[in-house]
C-alpha cells in the first residue's frame, strides 16, 4: 500500500511517515501543494494524508483539483482548525475523512485503514457476517448461530459499523462521528459503556468472544479463527 503525505510541518511528517512505515506502508512525503499536485499526476497512490494549511496551494484546493481531474484516491484531511464547519468544508471539497490535530497515531491509522478498504468493495450489501454473527441490513435484525439478538436502533448502527470494519481497529471518535454523528468528545467515556452492553448481548452466551477492546486505540470485531 502506497501512501502520500502532504504536510509542511517536517517533524510531524517525519513521525507520521515513520509510524506508517513501521505498520508496513510505503510512504512518500512532500511539503508543499504544487509539489503534491505534480506527484499525484505522475504516480498512483492508494491513499493520501493531506494537511489543510499549506504554503502555496492549500489542502482543500489540492483535493478539489484532483477530484476535478477524476482522481478517486481516498484522502484523509488533517487540520489544526478543528471546527465543525471546517470538517464540513473539508468533506465537501472531496475529502473522505477529516482528522483534527492533535491526533493519536492509532486514530489516524484506523481511519486510514477504513479509507483503504472503502476503495475496494462498493457493492451494496444486504447482510454482514463475522464468524457466526450475522447482521441483516434489510430487516434490521441480528443473530448469532441462528439465535436472534435484540438490538436497539443505536446498538444496531454500532454493530453495523464495527462489522463493516471487521478485523480492523475502530476508534471511539470514529464511532462518535459515524454512529452518533457527533464531532466532539464527551468528557466521560460513554462509548465504553455502549460497547460493553453490545458485548454482553453478542458474546455472553458464547465461548468465543468476537468484540475486543484494543488498549489505547479502540475496538475491533473479528473472527476468532
Amino acid at each position, binding site marked *: 500500500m502506497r501512501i502520500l503525505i502532504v504536510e509542511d*510541518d517536517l*517533524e*510531524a511528517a517525519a*513521525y*507520521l511517515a*515513520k*509510524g506508517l512505515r*513501521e505498520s508496513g506502508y510505503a510512504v512518500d512525503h512532500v511539503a508543499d501543494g504544487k509539489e503534491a499536485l505534480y506527484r499525484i499526476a505522475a504516480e498512483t497512490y492508494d491513499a493520501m494524508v493531506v494537511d489543510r494549511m499549506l504554503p502555496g496551494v492549500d489542502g482543500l484546493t489540492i483535493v478539489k483539483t484532483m477530484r476535478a481531474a477524476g482522481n478517486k484516491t481516498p484522502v484523509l484531511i488533517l487540520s*489544526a482548525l*478543528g*471546527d*465543525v*464547519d471546517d470538517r464540513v468544508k473539508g468533506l465537501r471539497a472531496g475529502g473522505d475523512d477529516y482528522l*483534527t*490535530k*492533535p*491526533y*493519536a*497515531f*492509532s486514530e489516524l491509522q484506523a481511519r486510514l485503514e477504513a479509507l483503504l478498504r472503502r476503495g475496494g468493495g462498493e457493492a451494496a450489501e444486504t447482510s454482514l457476517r463475522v464468524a457466526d454473527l450475522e447482521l441483516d441490513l434489510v430487516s434490521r435484525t441480528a443473530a448469532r448461530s441462528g439465535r436472534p439478538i435484540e438490538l436497539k436502533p*443505536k446498538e444496531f448502527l454500532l454493530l453495523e459499523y464495527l462489522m463493516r470494519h471487521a478485523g480492523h481497529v475502530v476508534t471511539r471518535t470514529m464511532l462518535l462521528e459515524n454512529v*452518533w454523528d*457527533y*464531532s*466532539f*468528545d*464527551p*468528557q*466521560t467515556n*460513554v462509548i465504553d*459503556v*455502549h460497547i460493553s*452492553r453490545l458485548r454482553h448481548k453478542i458474546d455472553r452466551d458464547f465461548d468465543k468472544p468476537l468484540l475486543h477492546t484494543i488498549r*489505547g486505540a479502540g475496538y475491533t470485531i473479528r473472527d476468532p479463527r
Partner: protein
Amino acid sequence: MIPVRIVRSTAFRLAFLYMALFGTSVLVLLGFIYHSTAGFMERQTEETVNAEIRGLTEQYSQQGLTGLVRAIETRVARDKSGSGLYLLTDWKFTPLAGNLKQWPEFTSTQDGWLDVELPEIDGQRVFARLKYFLLPGNYHLLVGRDVAERNTVEDLIMDALVWGLVITVLMGGLGAVLMTRGMLGRLDVINRASREIMLGDLSRRIPAKGTGDEFDQLTGNLNDMLDRIGALMDGVRHVSDNIAHDLRGPLNRIRARLELALPQAGEGGSGRGILERTIADIDEVLGAFHAILTISQAEAGSRREEFAMLDLARVAGDVAELYEPLAEDKGIRLRVELAPGLSAPGNRHLLSQALANLVDNAIKYTPPGGEVAVALSQGPDGPTISVQDTGPGVPPESRDKVLERFHRLESSRNAPGSGLGLSLVAAVAKLHGVSLTLSDARPGLRVILAFPRAEGGTGRP
C-alpha cells in the same frame, strides 16, 4: 393613565421640578399683584376718609353742629355713587344726620377703624370700612366707604391666581409627559441596542438620529467605546487562541514521539505505564485547549450564520440516549420527558455538546440510587430544556462562578474534569441567545436553558 415608567424617569422628575418652580413663581407674581392692588385701594380709602373727617371737624369747629349737619347732608347729596357713608349721633347714639339709618353693630375697633356689615340696602349686602370720631360735646361721627368694589377686585385677583396656578400645573404636567416621552423614546433605542450588544452581538452599533444633538453625541461615544472594546477583545482572543494554537503543535509532536516509543517499551513493563499515563495527561491538556478554542469561537458569535432549524426533542433525546447506559451502570434513573414538535435555530454539534456536558455533570455528581431528569417543554417565551439531578447541588453564591473558565467547586476538586464544561455550556447558550439558569432542585441542581421567543413564529415548525 400615565405609564409608571414615565413617572419614574429622571426626565419626568426634572420636568416636574421645573413645573413646581414655575408654579411657585406664578404664585409669587400674582401674590405681589394682589398685594399692591388691594393694598393700594385700601390705603386710598383710608386717605379719603381721613381727609373727609379733617374737613368735617373743621366745619364743626367753625360753624358748630348745624354747619356740620349741613356739610354732611351736602356730601350725601353730592355723592351719586352712594359709596360714601356718614352718620352723626348725639351722646345717646340718636342719629342726627347722614345716610346710615342707625349706629351699626360692631365689637372692636382698631386705630378707630371698623369693618362692619351694614343692613341691606336695596337687597344688597353692604360691607363697609368706617372711621369713628368723637367730637367735642360728645357727638359721635362715623365716616366710611362702601368696600364692595374693593372686594370685587380682590375676588378677581384671587380667581386669576387660582386659575393661573391650575393652568400652569396642567400645562406643565402635559409638557413634562410629552418631553419625557420624547426623551424616553431616544433612550429606549439606545438601551435596546445596548442589551442586544450585551447578549453577544458585539458587531452591532447604536443607531444615531443624525441631528447631532446630545443624544447623538452619547450614541457616538458609546459606539466608539464598543469599537475599542471590540478591538481589545479581538486582541485578547488572538493572544489566547495563539497560545492554544501554538502550544498544540509541540504537544502534538511530544505525543507522537511518546506513541512511537510505546511499542519499544515492551508489554507490561513499568516504562510502558509511565508512557501511557503521560500520553493521557497530554490528551487532557490538548482537550482543554480544544475546549478553550471552542468556547472563544462560540463567544465570538461568528458561528451564528451556520444555524439550522433543529428538532430539539431529537437533539436532547440523542444526548440522553448516549448517556442512558452510563446512568444505568451507576444505578441512576435517567428520566426523559420531551415534548414533541419544538424547534429552534442553532448549531447541532455545539448544542449537543453543551447538553452532553450538563448530563455528564449531572450523572457525575448524583449518588447511586438518585435520578437525573432531562426535560423539554414550551416555556413562557420559547422552548425550554432542563437538566436536573439529585446530587449535592451548587450553593447560590457559587452559581455564577461555576460558569467561569477553570472554576471548580472545592467539593469537586478531586473529581475528574477540566472546569471548562459549564463555561462551554454558558458560551453555547450565549451564542444561541438562550438564557442559562442554575437553581436549587431540592435536593440537587437544576439547569434550565430557555430559548428566546422565535422571530415570526411560535417555535413550532
